[in-house]
C-alpha cells in the first residue's frame, strides 16, 4: 500500500510542481481554479486514451514509434510551459506597474484562460499515461487486494495534490513582486530541462547522431539516481552526463524564452505609458 502510494506520489511530483507554480501565478485570472480543473480533466482524458492505445498494441514494435510520440509530447509541453512563463512575466510587469490602482482587476483575456487549460493539460498528459497504466495493471493483476491498492492510490494522489497546494501556498506567501519573477524563472527552467530531455532521447535513439558525446561527467558528485540528482533533474534538468545536443537545446530554450519575454515586456511598457496618460486625464 505504502509502495503504491510512493510510486503515485513520485509520478505526481512533476505535475504538482508545475500546478503549484501556475496556480499561484495565475490568481489574477478570474475563476482560475475552474480552468486548472478543466486542464487536469483534459489531460487525464488524453492520458487515458493514449494508455488505451498502448495496451491495445499487441507488443510494442521494434521501431521508434512510442519514443517519437514521447518526444512530440515533450516538445509540445516545452512550447506550452515556455509560453506560460512568458505570459506570467508580462502579467507580472503589468501587475507591478498598475499596483495600487488596478491591482484588484482580474485578467479576463481568453488567451490567458486557454493557455491555463493547455499548460495544465499538457503537464498532466505527460506523466498521466504512466499513472493510468500503472493503476490499470495493478487493478487487473490483484483483484483481491484491490482495496489495499485503492487506499495506496488515494494516499499517493492526496500527497501529490498536497504538494501542489503547499508549493502554491508557499509561493503566494512571498512578495508579489518576486512571485512572478520566481515563477518565470522556475517555469523557464522546467521548459529548458524538458527540451534537453527530448534532445537526450533523440540522440539515445540514434535518430540524431551529431553532438552525442558527453560534455561533462559529474556522476561522482551527484548521481542521476540519488535523491538530490532526482530533485535537481525535476527543477533544473540536471543530468550527470549531458551530451552536446542536450546542452544546446537547454540553453537555446532559455535564451528563446528570455528574448520573447523581453519583447513582450517592451509591449507592456507602452501599455504602462497609456495607463499613465489615462491617470493624468482623470
Amino acid at each position, binding site marked *: 500500500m505504502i509502495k503504491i502510494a510512493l510510486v503515485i506520489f513520485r509520478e505526481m511530483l512533476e505535475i504538482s510542481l508545475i500546478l503549484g507554480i501556475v496556480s499561484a501565478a495565475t490568481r489574477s485570472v478570474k475563476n482560475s481554479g475552474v480552468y486548472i480543473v478543466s486542464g487536469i480533466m483534459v489531460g487525464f482524458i488524453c492520458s487515458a486514451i493514449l494508455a488505451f492505445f498502448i495496451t491495445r498494441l499487441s*507488443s510494442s514494435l521494434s521501431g521508434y514509434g*512510442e*519514443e517519437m510520440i514521447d518526444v512530440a509530447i515533450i516538445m509540445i509541453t516545452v512550447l506550452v510551459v515556455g509560453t506560460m512563463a512568458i505570459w506570467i512575466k508580462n502579467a507580472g510587469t503589468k501587475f507591478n506597474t498598475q499596483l495600487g490602482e488596478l491591482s484588484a482587476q482580474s485578467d479576463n483575456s481568453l488567451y490567458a484562460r486557454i493557455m491555463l487549460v493547455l499548460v495544465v493539460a499538457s503537464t498532466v498528459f505527460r506523466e498521466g499515461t*504512466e499513472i493510468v497504466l500503472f493503476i490499470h495493471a495493478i487493478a487487473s493483476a490483484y483483484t483481491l487486494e484491490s482495496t489495499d491498492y485503492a487506499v495506496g492510490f488515494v494516499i499517493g494522489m492526496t500527497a501529490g495534490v498536497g504538494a501542489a497546494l503547499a508549493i502554491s501556498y508557499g509561493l503566494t506567501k512571498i512578495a508579489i513582486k518576486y512571485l512572478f519573477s520566481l515563477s518565470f524563472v522556475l517555469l523557464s527552467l522546467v521548459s529548458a530541462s524538458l527540451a534537453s530531455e527530448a534532445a537526450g532521447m533523440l540522440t*539515445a535513439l*540514434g535518430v540524431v547522431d551529431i553532438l552525442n558525446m558527453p560534455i561533462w561527467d559529474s556522476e561522482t558528485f551527484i548521481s542521476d539516481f540519488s535523491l538530490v540528482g532526482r530533485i535537481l533533474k525535476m527543477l533544473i534538468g540536471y543530468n550527470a552526463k549531458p551530451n552536446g545536443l542536450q546542452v544546446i537545446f537547454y540553453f537555446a530554450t532559455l535564451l528563446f524564452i528570455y528574448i520573447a519575454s523581453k519583447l513582450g515586456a517592451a509591449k507592456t511598457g507602452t501599455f504602462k505609458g497609456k495607463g499613465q496618460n489615462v491617470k493624468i486625464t482623470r
Partner: protein
Amino acid sequence: MNLIRYVYCLFLFVQTIHPESAYARNILDAQDSKKHDVVVEIKLQNHLFSPAEIYVPAHKKVTLVIHNLDPTVEEFDSPPLKREKLLKSNSITHIILAPLMPGRYDFIGEFYQDTAKGAVIVEE
C-alpha cells in the same frame, strides 16, 4: 488533399534517394535487425531483471528485448542511457540503443526500484 499527396510523394522520394533517413533506417531495423544489431534478451520476473548485468560491445547498435513476465507494468528508466520506456505487463518490449561509448550504464525499474536494478556494461 493535393498538398498531402505532394508531401507524401516527397517523403517517398527522400526515402529512395536517402536510405539512411530515420524512417528508412527504422524499416531496415525491423527487417534485418539481426544482421547489424546486437540483440540482448532480458527477463523481468518478480521485479528482478535477469541477467541484471548485460555486456555489449562498444560502437554497436544494441536492442534490448525485455520480457516482462510480471502481472504489473514497469518503467524502464535510465538517466545514463537517457531512456524511459514503459514495460507492459506480460509482454515484450524492444528498446533500441544507439551505439554507446565504453562504460557502465545503470538502469532501474522505476515502479519497483528496490529490486528492479540492472546495468548495461559496454566494453571495447
